[in-house]
């Protein structure tokens, strides 16, 4: 049974950037005279501009990096796309078809967010940017969903099938598709929870990201520098993985002359060693395998991060079967009189008698059930 395009395995990277301090800016005390009105409503221009600059800067950073390594298609793949904006936050998404794309994209994101940071700080020095990234595997653990246009909603009886058909059309024409896709699932929830621990210094990551970076030695590709990854311990995240402790890894964005940097040296807070990260993540996935699994990429070029959990193929196959499962009500069988000679009709003179027996039985069950309930 051929896998429909929307059910092909995809590992997505989500990139979030959020303005820090915007709520306080919007909630500042009202104007005391008309002359202050301009200042009071000045927050809007910053946020409006932030949306534009976020897209521009990521696109530019991507193009610049891409231009420097024109013969490395596998290391880039498609450019990240804007998924959605939520208040003062922008979120981009990208399908990873090769593990090297993870480090390349994270570096682009760091560069892009620096530009966003400069943009907002120039307009209001009390503002800053915090950012986060997380991974989510589709379509078993997490799902894509779409809503049809209003006129198509009336006759939708199977939400899974109608959403799948729209997604298939989208994947057949991604360039021209206007479909608005949402992503839902436990990994997305984890991403938002983890993102709440981000600060302008701490670029927080879901556990799959340090795992892949530690496992694959991204600097070997020569396309990127290294990341300084820190570990802040683990803690329960509300509603996540049945309440088990979730690890908080982050990439350090502080400058070498910053007070944060010197404070770390003073207190002995050091970046985590690559092998330690890998071993920790392995243990995490082993211990919590009923909730989560190691990320994997299924593509022709991927060799290192390609191992699926043992049970994955069976569930994936069931998803495909269910997508192709026919609507009961649309299957009527052969027309009357074309029953392939296997019908066994009951003679007309016995029919009424046999039907009466059935009806009597059903009436009896009904009465008995009613008696049971009343007693």
């Amino acid at each position, binding site marked *: 049974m051929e896998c429909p395009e929307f059910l092909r395995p995809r590992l997505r990277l989500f990139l979030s950037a959020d303005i820090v301090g915007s709520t306080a800016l919007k909630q500042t005390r009202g104007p005391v005279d008309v002359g202050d009105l301009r200042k009071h409503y000045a927050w809007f221009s910053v946020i409006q501009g932030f949306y534009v600059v976020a897209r521009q800067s990521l696109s530019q950073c991507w193009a610049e990096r891409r231009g420097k390594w024109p013969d490395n298609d596998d290391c880039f793949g498609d450019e990240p796309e804007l998924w959605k904006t939520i208040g003062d936050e922008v979120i981009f998404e990208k399908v990873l078809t090769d593990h090297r794309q993870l480090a390349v994209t994270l570096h682009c994101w760091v560069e892009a967010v620096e530009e966003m940071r400069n943009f907002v700080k120039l307009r209001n020095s009390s503002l800053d940017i915090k950012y986060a990234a997380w991974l989510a595997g589709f379509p078993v653990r997490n799902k894509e969903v779409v809503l049809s246009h209003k006129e198509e909603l009336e006759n939708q009886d199977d939400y899974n099938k109608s959403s799948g058909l729209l997604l298939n059309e989208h994947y057949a024409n991604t360039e021209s598709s206007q479909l608005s896709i949402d992503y839902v699932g436990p990994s997305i929830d984890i991403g938002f929870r983890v993102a709440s621990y981000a600060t302008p210094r701490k670029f927080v990551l879901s556990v799959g990201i340090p795992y892949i970076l530690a496992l694959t030695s991204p600097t070997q590709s020569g396309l990127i520098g290294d990341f300084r990854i820190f570990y802040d311990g683990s803690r329960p995240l509300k509603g996540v993985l049945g309440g088990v402790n979730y690890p908080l890894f982050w990439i350090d964005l502080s400058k070498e002359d910053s007070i944060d940097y010197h404070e770390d040296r003073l207190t002995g807070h050091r970046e985590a060693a690559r092998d330690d990260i890998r071993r920790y993540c392995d243990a995490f996935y082993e211990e919590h395998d009923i909730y989560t699994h190691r990320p994997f990429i299924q593509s022709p070029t991927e060799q290192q991060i390609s191992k699926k959990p043992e049970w994955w193929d069976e569930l994936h196959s069931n998803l495909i079967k269910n997508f192709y499962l026919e609507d*009961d*009500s649309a*299957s*009527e069988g052969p027309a009357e009189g074309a*029953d392939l000679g296997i019908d066994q009709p009951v003679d007309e003179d016995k029919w009424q008698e046999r039907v009466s027996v*059935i009806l009597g039985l059903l*009436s009896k069950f*009904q009465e008995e*059930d009613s008696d049971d309930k009343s007693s």
Partner: protein
Amino acid sequence: MRIAGYEEATPCFLPKRQVYSLAESVANQLEHKPGDDIHALVERIGGTVTVQDTLMEDPERSGSLYVDAHDDFRIIVPAHTSGVRDRFTIAHELGHYVLHYVWKHSHGENPPERMYALRKGSERVEWEANWFASGFLMPEAHFREAFQRLRNVAAVAAELDVSLPAAEIRARQLGLA
């Protein structure tokens, strides 16, 4: 595929017209009118309806109906379908229960002691359950009267609280479209 302790539903081989006729008789006997609450009817005769996320279940290995006794059966409805689709699904499972369990028991035709119906069973057994559901939810006289009055299959479907594809098939079967 076998489910431990249960036997799979097998066809009764009644012709289409007799299945339709039986379905309408059952609806009359149980005083079920088109558009009535079918969940309540199932409960009245000892059954239960459970909504379940079935997308990760193998439809060729998971049941949509489990019958433990005449007055004890469970219908599983998928969580990803609409209310009108669910009504047809429930009527379809009721068809399995009546045709492939009660009918066989009442006439000694090698009846199963405990029976299940797969979400994706053989063609014949599924057709029989569909004919039953169609006759049960859309009795001929009522359907003809509504069609004559409304002159539109979609309007008839809305009045009978069934999906458009189900009503279109019934209209074709009655020679109305």
